[in-house]
């Protein structure tokens, strides 16, 4: 960083810490930001602070929101007997885009992964139980088909089933419109494991 004037070096350093940004891109972004008109730069800086000031977790489902309770949880037309548990807010957004699902959500804000110091107590799991007790009859687990996703699903299933609630998990296998002979072996193995009677 010693080649940069101090404030510029600081900016490059901050940008480098962003996910997916290496030293080269950080430098390019920093130079771009430096050359922006003052107004534009301020708008950018304010946007960051506004997010920090105004976005919090929904009191109900732990989704990101700028209100006390998020839009989905406030929606009175939602089916309050079904709850879909996802890892991240962007998973919720993906599910919402289908326009298929009209139940509630719960966002864990991560998956169980001891290597990243994420144990169950660090996730929004405790918050699930009072919600389930409040009239939910089916829980759908929608996680990525990774080791961590599967472990988190097993964890939740083992804790929720004794409460008498139905627990299901979204299917893992071939993509819709996919071609059987183009699928890789891992996908096919998974599709076979998850096959169901018709």
């Amino acid at each position, binding site marked *: 960083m010693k080649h940069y004037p101090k404030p510029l070096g600081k900016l490059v350093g901050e940008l480098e810490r962003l996910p997916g940004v290496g030293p080269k891109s950080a430098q390019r972004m920093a130079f771009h930001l430096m050359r922006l008109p003052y107004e534009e730069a301020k708008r950018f800086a304010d946007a960051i602070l506004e997010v920090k000031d105004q976005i919090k977790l929904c009191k109900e489902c732990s989704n990101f929101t700028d209100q006390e309770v998020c839009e989905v949880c406030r929606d009175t037309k939602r089916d309050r007997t079904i709850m879909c548990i996802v890892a991240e807010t962007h998973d919720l957004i993906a599910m919402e885009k289908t326009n298929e699902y009209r139940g509630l959500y719960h966002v864990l804000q991560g998956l*169980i*992964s*001891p*290597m990243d110091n994420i*144990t*169950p*107590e660090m996730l929004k799991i405790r918050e699930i139980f009072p919600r389930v007790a409040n009239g939910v009859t089916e829980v759908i687990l929608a996680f990525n088909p990774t*080791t*961590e996703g*599967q*472990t988190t699903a*097993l*964890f939740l299933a*083992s804790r929720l089933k004794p409460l008498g609630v139905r627990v299901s998990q979204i299917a893992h296998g071939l993509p819709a419109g996919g071609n*059987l*002979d183009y699928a*890789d*072996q*891992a996908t*096919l*193995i998974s599709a*076979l*494991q*998850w*096959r*169901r*009677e018709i």
Partner: protein
Amino acid sequence: MRVRYLKLNQFRNYPSLELHPGEGVNILYGQNAQGKTNVLEALSLLATTRSLRASRESELIFRGGDVARVMADVVRECQGDVDLEVSVFQTDKKEVKINGSKRGRVVDILGQFNAVFFGSIDLVIVMGEPADRRHYLNIEISQISPRYVYDLGHYKRVLAQRNRLLKELRDRPRPPKELGLDVWNEQLINYGAPIIEKRRFYLERLAPLANQVHRALTDGKENLEIRYLPSVRLPKPAELSTLSTAVVDNSMIRETNRETQYLTEIQDATPASESAPQTRVESPLSDTEAIAAAFREQMAEMGLEEARRGVTLLGPQRDDIGFFIDGAETRLYGSQGQQRTATLALKLAEFQLIQDYVGEPPVMLLDDVMSDLDDNRRAHLLEWVRRRCQTFITCTSLRPFPKEILAEATTFQVANGVVTPDVRRKTRNSRILAEKEANKPETASESVEIAS
């Protein structure tokens, strides 16, 4: 199975190389450090997606190049011919193409082309550490079972996560269930049990074949016993299907077939997996389930010992294979000659096993065996490969080869990254053959006369 055409690009010491190997024995000869073994390594890469000796796969790239590429045109009797390509990038990333179309996962190429490699580096299987033997098992089993690779990948991940959790419990003791240890236990068993079962299944079939070969190599004087030494004590043999009751488990055979067959057979056989849907048909415990039950029981017996030590103490990561010659452990008590013979027996048994599963002989890759083996074993080996399969042999000189092998073989001279087919030798050989042919009618008529 044989390679009709091999092309290397920026691979090891070859800027580029094109090779049209013969159907039988191919001999690559030349001075040391000219690139003979690199050709074998390229073929082995196609079969296993792994380098034979590089710790980082980017070491396979020609000095100054950006991507090493191996392409082969493979003739197969059972599955039809196929074009394979493996590329290795500077980032150690690999990419595979099957018949010109890129595959999402590198492991998809496993099973497309089968080869058995034998060279001095294989001595570590008998003489090295348990980790070397597990590595050997993993590579061999993945050649015939894609499911094994899948389970192994998940298992390693679960093991790393579980070890991290156990360390956490050691340093800051808490009720393990709060941290979800029970779920990691189940996951370890889920992915571990099929691995243990595949290893048992593979070694149980390999062992008698290896003993047969070993006996032949020692003129019936010595017996070689190969024993699977799993970390999880297996259920009693009565509860597991063995060779004599082999009808029960054909999971491995099933997987070696193509998808279509895989799908039709699945109707009358349920895969042994805990994560299968709840609607599965009720059946007696499969081998994998019996092993999973034993795994679970022994893990429970261990109690909090694992949390106290902060590490997983049970599972395939602690497996080993034992080699015994007439009851004595080869690694400790065997002579160098016995260790070499045991390794060779193991490799030839592996060849037979692959041939049984795939339905046709794999390609044999023999690295510098002419100087490593004594006359007896060398003769046995050459007799074995002769007319049985396509073979690639590296050596420093053609002198140790018997005439009848040389007469049939295709020979290539390797010098400083250039491989030249021996046209001259071939013609001379065929001239010798032609002369023999010309003499034949006389000898034949002579013998006829004698006979009459």
